[in-house]
């Protein structure tokens, strides 16, 4: 029998890593607060910088071994800079600035992710709160969730007759599951004690949902949204490689066809940076609602 197992849901919901806090005690007695802070910021930047230098080094060595086939970091950064210096030019359908491509991709991710959230949060809430709906819906979720999102692309094409809309549909199918499962798991894991408070003090149904269930599960829901956004941003590149026409994924494929690995690598860098910013944004939202 298929049963909703919190353990499996828990592994699906990666708990956000606890923020590594680096604190620096003033080494110099009597050092001013501003100086100590500047030093701690400097040190905090030092370690990531070391990591990137290491990456650049490995990259450089790899490109030296591969010869002309793999451009090195310096050549790539030149092209990267060139792409960023004029991101919004538009010379017809096959030649647009990387900024326009990014905005197009972000728009599709936003649309697919937004629609998915509108469905996943209420359905997840229902599954968490009602055992019957959980027993009905969870097997369906289990069957659909492992499907590669790109498999939905033909269905999207058939339904919408537009590659762009089909891409949004693919993102929609991608972004449903983490949010749905985390929401259901969050609502389900409401501690008995909180429930008992509502029972002893006779909270109305509305008060129970708005003052107990929702605030309790909000961090779980936001974690789900964050994971959904993460996979949506990963899948958009693949989706647009299939769909063509517009977007950062198309840009990657188009650059490959133009035999410019510098542009491909630049796009990879940019995709990573945007992904990081999106993730940070959700982290920031999550901290607002943490209790």
């Amino acid at each position, binding site marked *: 029998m298929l049963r909703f197992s919190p353990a499996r849901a828990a592994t699906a919901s990666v708990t956000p890593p606890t923020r590594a806090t680096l604190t620096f005690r003033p080494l110099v007695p009597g050092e001013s607060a501003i100086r100590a802070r500047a030093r701690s910021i400097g040190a905090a930047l030092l370690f990531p910088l070391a990591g990137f230098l290491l990456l650049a080094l490995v990259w450089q060595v790899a490109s030296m071994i591969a010869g002309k086939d793999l451009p090195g970091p310096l050549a790539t950064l030149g092209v990267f800079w060139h792409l960023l210096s004029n991101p919004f030019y538009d010379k017809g359908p096959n030649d647009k600035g990387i900024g326009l491509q990014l905005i197009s991709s972000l728009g599709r991710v936003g649309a697919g992710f937004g629609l998915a959230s509108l469905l996943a949060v209420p359905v997840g809430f229902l599954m968490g709160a009602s055992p019957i709906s959980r027993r009905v819906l969870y097997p369906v979720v289990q069957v659909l969730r492992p499907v590669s999102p790109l498999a939905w692309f033909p269905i999207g094409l058939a339904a919408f007759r537009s590659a762009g809309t089909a891409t949004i549909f693919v993102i929609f199918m991608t972004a449903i599951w983490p949010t749905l499962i985390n929401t259901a798991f969050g609502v389900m894991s409401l501690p008995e*004690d909180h429930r*008992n408070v509502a029972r*002893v003090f006779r909270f109305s149904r509305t008060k129970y949902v708005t*003052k107990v269930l929702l605030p309790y599960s909000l961090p779980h829901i936001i974690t789900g949204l964050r994971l959904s956004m993460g996979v949506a941003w990963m899948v958009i590149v693949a989706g647009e490689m299939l769909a063509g026409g517009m977007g950062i994924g198309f840009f990657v494929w188009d650059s490959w066809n133009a035999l410019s690995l510098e542009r491909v690598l630049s796009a990879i860098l940019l995709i990573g940076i945007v992904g990081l910013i999106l993730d940070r944004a959700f982290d920031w939202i999550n901290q607002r609602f943490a*209790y």
Partner: protein
Amino acid sequence: MTPFLQLQEVTKIFGTSRGPYVAVNDVSLDIQRGEIVSLIGHSGCGKSTVLNMIAGLERATAGTVCLEGRLITEPGPDRALVFQNYSLLPWMSVWDNIFEAVDSVVTGLSKAEKRERVEHFLQMVGLWQHRFKRPGQISGGMKQRVAVARAFAVHPSVLLLDEPFGSLDALTRASLQEELVKIWSLDNNTETVVMVTHDIEEAILLSDRIAVMTNGPYATIGEVVQVPLDRPRHEREIVANPVYREIHDHLWYLLTEAYAEAA
């Protein structure tokens, strides 16, 4: 006259994976209005189960629990429970934790009157200046006072305390015990209190009667001990009282020898 709170031949059986487990067997106890009664026993002897059945969080497998002649079937604000781990809602301020309880329990009061009541009880437990803090920002003793204030603020017929001071340090515990009795006497001693504890000194200090439970399974009330000590009681004075000594030794004997083994 029927007693205010009456437990009649109450039995609770839990279904476990290894078959039924009789946690509480044939417990009968009558409690009068205004009494403070303690349930004392070894940990795991089922005293919290008895309290939960009075609270209505659990149903008795057999027997009845009645408050003012009415059968208890579900939880309700007439039996406000102070949970063992306080059970404040961590996303709400101290103020909201009390206000939401008052707001949903009390009918026929304006919002302003409800706010007045919350303020009254927050002042009473000395947490007025901490009202905007969340439970995570205050100490264990303060959380406990919020939980007590929340319970008193809904004007329950019975106040149920589940090892209320168990996880506090000795100094905080002593001052809160005193405060509890003070709040109780401010309400003209009309409040009925049922308390679960495993602390003999605490039981004697606070209770009119102490129900001593035997060890589980098949735990039941072995003996009900009267505490004929005058109020107000002060911990440092009553320990010198020969009556206190006598009760203390008797309880000690019951718990360590008479009921040390499973019945």
